[in-house]
């Protein structure tokens, strides 16, 4: 095997392979804890949910192509737009980026796995089951229909009878378990598992972005969970949290939702920005300008994003003082994004551009995200927000931010890391075609929405009358949506083509600067035969780091006995001790399945079944956490 790292002798490699590699079998497929397999699953599953949410969008755009169309009933349309939004936010964007994080974080920091591999497997299964739980409601006409932010009292049991909103509250509570587990895992992994020498100020920007995102998840998600739990209790047991007649308050829902919801915008976009910072060095042949500034910007966004939620509520009639405060905070949060944009521009202006598909998507990202950013700064101003919020203008705005800030970076990331993930190269021409169709399709779809939003068209309408100057532009948007869909289909074709027919990828096809490029494509089960000692911010470009894996590498970084990887200190990345990593286990799958039973039982009000499921959950968790003997046996 041709590897850039040669410090481990053949016996070490054999032992590593034996200790880490899982035999391909159904059993190992169900019990794997390998972060690379789990990461790939996240990517594929999130891609599948993306396709479903995308098809929903195409159906909606087809309905809206003409005024007064009756292709879809209002019932169908309302379920489709709710599922489109909910799935894109919760089942695509975050899991997709968690997929990249899962695959890449251990590789980028020079570790052999995530800190908690079994928790990682558990998180994936929960994500899969929660996604299926929610989508399964659609064929039965019982999908959520209250919009992705499900405002009360429309979502109360009086105004929305049926299972629709129970699917929503329970589905999101179920999914929240996965997201929280994943976030904790990322934080611990990035803080404790970095290769020796990788002090915090040598941690790749992508990892910074993932860690900041994970912290946001941990602080933001409880607000959403509490909100959904209260709504479930209101609907099922008449708790009255949101019922004015019972002394409840309908705005409480909105406050809690957006205390989660605004950080969530950055939870979605931040890893995307991290991908941009990861892709640029390889295609500009230099590091990103102003690393400390970019890190500062990432951390600043993560903090400020918790102080701007009320700008989603500028039309509900809050006191003027709070308008003033939230308007100012919402204006300020554009600054850290501005810093990052100009850091990337400076990087491109000083480097040498290698115009491959990933860089094309990064350029598409900058163009689109800046447009979304300037309209975002407009929305920070209360008076303007009150005019265009809940119109198609805001639909245009957040698609520019989310397609620009998350989808384009994700596509850049797919092309960039495809060789690493699959071991195969993609076809460049196909990639370029996909880029241009996606880019043009995106702007043809969403740019006109600014216009008909200003012309007074509200969002979330299943139809609209002719003669208001909305029809022509809506048709343009629909045409654009189909172009976009063809572009995305070409991405899929490109990936399948690469997997089937692509030529084998070398370890480092791009000349990337981070550690994942210093091992094979795809990486072996143990990631690195020798854990490198990191000497700079760009370890793959750094001769001393490369030398550290050559002859003379010390045994404490080879660790071929058992499944071991080094633990290092949080700030300086000083070597502490090797840590034993767990083996494959069926418990994550069993626990996730039991949770699926629990949430299904809650949905259909089979409370005895739910109680039994809780008992099994408790038993499985106890079994999982029971101290094993294996750890002592190996040391």
């Amino acid at each position, binding site marked *: 095997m041709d590897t850039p790292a040669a410090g481990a002798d053949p016996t070490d490699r054999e032992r590593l392979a034996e200790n880490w590699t899982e035999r391909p079998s159904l059993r190992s497929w169900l019990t794997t804890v390998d972060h690379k397999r789990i990461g790939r699953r996240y990517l594929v599953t999130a891609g599948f949910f993306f396709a479903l949410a995308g098809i929903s969008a195409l159906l909606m755009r087809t309905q809206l192509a003409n005024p007064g169309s009756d292709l879809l009933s*209002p019932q169908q349309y309302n379920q489709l737009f709710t599922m489109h939004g909910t799935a894109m936010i919760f089942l695509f964007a975050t899991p997709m980026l968690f997929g990249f994080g899962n695959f890449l974080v251990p590789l980028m920091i020079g570790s052999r796995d995530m800190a908690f591999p079994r928790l990682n497997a558990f998180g994936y299964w929960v994500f899969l089951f929660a996604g299926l739980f929610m989508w399964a409601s659609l064929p039965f006409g019982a999908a959520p229909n*209250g919009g992705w932010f499900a405002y009360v*009292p429309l979502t109360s049991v009086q*105004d*929305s009878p049926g299972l629709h909103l129970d699917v929503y509250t329970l589905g999101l509570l179920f999914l929240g378990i996965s997201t929280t587990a994943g976030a904790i895992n990322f934080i611990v992994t990035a803080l404790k598992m970095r290769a020796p020498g990788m002090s915090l100020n040598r941690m790749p920007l992508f990892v910074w972005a993932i860690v900041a995102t994970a912290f946001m998840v941990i602080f933001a998600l409880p607000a959403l969970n509490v909100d959904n739990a209260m709504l479930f209790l209101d609907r099922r047991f008449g708790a009255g949290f949101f019922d*004015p007649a019972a002394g409840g308050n*309908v*705005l409480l829902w909105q406050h809690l939702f957006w205390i989660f919801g605004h950080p969530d915008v950055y939870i979605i976009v931040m890893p995307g920005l991290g991908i941009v910072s990861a892709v640029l060095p390889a295609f*500009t*042949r*230099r590091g990103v300008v*102003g690393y400390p*500034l970019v890190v500062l910007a990432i951390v600043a966004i993560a903090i400020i994003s918790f102080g701007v939620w009320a700008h989603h509520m500028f*039309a*509900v*009639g809050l006191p*003027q003082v709070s308008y003033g405060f939230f*308007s100012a905070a919402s*204006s300020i949060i*554009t*600054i850290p994004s*501005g*810093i*990052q*944009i*100009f*850091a990337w*521009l400076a990087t*491109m*202006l*000083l*480097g*040498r*551009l*290698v115009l491959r598909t990933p860089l094309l998507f990064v*350029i598409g990202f900058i*163009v689109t995200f*800046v447009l979304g950013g*300037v*309209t975002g*700064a*407009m929305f*920070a*101003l*209360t*008076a*303007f927000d009150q*005019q265009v919020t*809940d*119109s198609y203008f805001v639909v245009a705005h957040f698609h520019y931010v989310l397609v620009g800030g998350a989808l384009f970076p994700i596509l850049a990331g797919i092309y960039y890391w495809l060789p690493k993930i699959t071991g195969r190269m993609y076809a460049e021409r196909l990639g370029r075609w996909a880029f241009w169709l996606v880019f043009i399709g995106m702007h043809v779809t969403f740019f006109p929405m600014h216009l008909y939003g*200003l*012309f*007074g068209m*509200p*969002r979330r309408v*299943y139809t*609209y009358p002719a003669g*208001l*100057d909305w029809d*022509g532009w809506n048709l343009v948007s629909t045409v654009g949506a189909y172009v976009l869909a063809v572009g995305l289909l070409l991405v899929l074709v490109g990936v399948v083509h690469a997997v089937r027919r692509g030529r084998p990828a070398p370890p480092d096809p791009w000349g990337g600067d981070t550690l994942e490029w210093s091992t094979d494509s795809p990486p072996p089960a143990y990631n690195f035969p020798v854990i490198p000692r990191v000497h700079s911010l760009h370890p793959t470009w750094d001769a001393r780091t490369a030398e550290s894996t050559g002859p003379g590498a010390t045994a404490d970084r080879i660790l071929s006995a058992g499944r071991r990887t080094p633990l290092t200190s949080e700030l300086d990345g000083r070597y502490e001790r090797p840590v034993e990593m767990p083996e494959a286990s069926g418990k994550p799958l069993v626990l996730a399945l039991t949770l699926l039973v629990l949430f299904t039982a809650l949905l259909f009000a089979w409370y005895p079944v739910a109680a039994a499921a809780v008992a099994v959950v408790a038993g499985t968790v106890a079994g999982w956490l029971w101290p094993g003997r294996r750890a002592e046996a190996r040391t």
Partner: protein
Amino acid sequence: MGTTEAAQTPRTGPDRRRRTGPAVAAATLLPLAGCASDAPSALDPAGAGAQRVEGLWWLLFWISVVVFVEVLALLVWALIFRRGARTRVRHGQPLRFVTIAGAGLPLVILVAVYGVSLRDLAALGTDPGPDAPTVEVTGHKWWWEVRYEGVAGATANEIHIPVGERVRVRLRTADVLHSFWVPQLMPKTDLIAGETRETWLHADRPGEYRGQCAEYCGLQHAHMALMVVAVPRPEFDARLARLAAPAPAPSTDAERRGQQAFVQGTCAACHTVRGTGAQGRVGPDLSDVGSRWSLGAGAVPNDAGHLGGWIANPQTVKPGNQMPPQPVDAARLPDLIAYLRSLD
């Protein structure tokens, strides 16, 4: 209509000159003005509230153009001059450039714009004064109940206001959240369950200004439109006087038969016609239904054909609305239509 023609849409009044810049922008940069007269467009404001926001928009628009062009220029520069094997990579860290262009300049612009917007926010928030006429608007799934303070009668989906005067609008909802939005006159105010909100309307020229519910409110959110009709003060007073009086009495035999069918049939269980036995409170008051701009809050035009269709089966016109299909005798339907058409 071409863009040049649209840009020349006659503007009257003192602010004609102020708008020249934006009009040119509309004609050149954005094909915004396709047929601007038809759209309830925030860029075609007809009153003090929307004009404030329009002014703010053009300021923001031009700043955005400058910012976007700047970023695009830097990208294009890099794409032209920083490619190819002979390009030497430079390894500097131009932190000053990033800080000034990415943080310093934006901060200055944001602070300035924020200051301007506070002025607009305060202007939108001013109370129209104790003497302003007050309209009480109640949101229902999926129509607007409209009453005028001090006037007994109610109407639906149509608000008359006197030109040039500020009118207070008091907003409540009977069920879920809705949002009151008339883009040419005033930005949105949400209707919050269990609470009362206030906004105001002001139109500086007579006309009809379409509005629509802007907060998703369920199945027929798409068909919850309203029309604000700005009329000279005497017409407004006459309108209120008509709302205070009983509905017009039937004048033909057909209308009389229609009234009888209305009052004695199922209609009266849900609808009111002032001065008759019909006093239902579930659906809209129909005392002036013949004069309204539409049926079903913008669902269909208000003419005899659509009215007949609506009465026979409102569920095909606006699926999910509260009105069930009516078992009306086919022979009675023309009478009922004649009667309802006569109510104006």
